[in-house]
């Protein structure tokens, strides 16, 4: 069967204190470690010598979780292409480094939002239910902390099933934006909440927000360094 035991699990993946609220952005080295781990695991599972007899069926899943899975698989493929996992075949795919970084950034960002819903997902004898009040409260905090409104609307719109009896996404939209999903979409220039332009705008906004945050962090770090240098100089001159 699989050779999972031969592969060292990256420390970040082993960290039990890796909850959404304490999560930080991964370093390039940590990302490469995880891709290498996923790559070896996936290769082992793909090359197990036994044929598998599976039962095929259909199921409804959250669009967001499906997107997240695809991004991980895409990352593996790009990792191979870039040589992250030991191969170098960059021919004809020159735009990949930029695209890869963008996928990584948007994927991590959307994962945090998706996890809000996942954390408040519960099972009972009637199936899955969501604590809409807690989801709305967490998203409200995120909005206050500068998470773009369209990203939260996009994740909410794509994370719930909705029927006549249960419509959690409308409840969250109502609580956050005082509008139905389609009303919110029209107010923001989209045809409906299913408009494909929403996803593109969300990704653009996430990249822009991330770049602004990185710029601010580097500016703060520069100011702190300068402050420390001035303080050292003053101490050297006999000041306190």
């Amino acid at each position: 069967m699989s050779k999972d035991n031969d592969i060292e699990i990256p420390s970040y993946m082993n960290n039990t204190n890796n909850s959404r609220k304490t999560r930080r952005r991964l370093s390039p080295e940590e990302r490469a470690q995880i891709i290498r781990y996923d790559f070896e695991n996936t290769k082992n599972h793909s090359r197990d010598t036994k044929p598998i007899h599976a039962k095929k069926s259909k199921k409804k899943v959250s669009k967001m979780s499906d997107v997240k899975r695809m991004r991980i698989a895409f990352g593996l493929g790009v990792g191979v292409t870039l040589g992250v996992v030991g191969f170098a075949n960059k021919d004809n795919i020159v735009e990949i480094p930029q695209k890869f970084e963008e996928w990584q950034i948007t994927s991590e960002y959307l994962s945090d939002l998706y996890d809000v819903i996942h954390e408040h997902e519960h099972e009972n004898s009637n199936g899955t239910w969501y604590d809409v009040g807690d989801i709305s409260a967490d998203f409200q905090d995120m909005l206050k902390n500068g998470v773009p409104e369209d990203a939260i609307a996009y994740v909410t719109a794509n994370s719930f099933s909705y029927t006549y009896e249960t419509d959690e996404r409308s409840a969250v939209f109502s609580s956050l934006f005082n509008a139905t999903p389609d009303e919110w979409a029209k107010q923001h220039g989209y045809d409906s909440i299913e408009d494909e332009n929403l996803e593109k705008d969300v990704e653009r906004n996430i990249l822009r927000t991330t770049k602004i945050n990185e710029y601010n962090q580097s500016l703060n770090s520069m100011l702190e360094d300068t402050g420390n240098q001035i303080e050292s100089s003053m101490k050297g001159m006999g000041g306190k």
Partner: protein
Amino acid sequence: MKEVDIYTFDDKNYVLLDRIEDYLFLSNEKNDHDMMIRKVDADDEETLLPLESDEEFEKALLLLVTKKLKEEES
């Protein structure tokens, strides 16, 4: 929500992420880091064959990347 194909074996559900040629790209419904690529048996859609070599595994991954990049561009 989105309707997807599920392959169930070893008491686990694997979501079909994509199918390119005979290659199925599968991801464990409960664990994003448990993935595999398998080939469909020409005589039985529910029999999933292992890949034959590391080269075939790389080839399948590159097929996925190329397809997704083309989709992004369109």
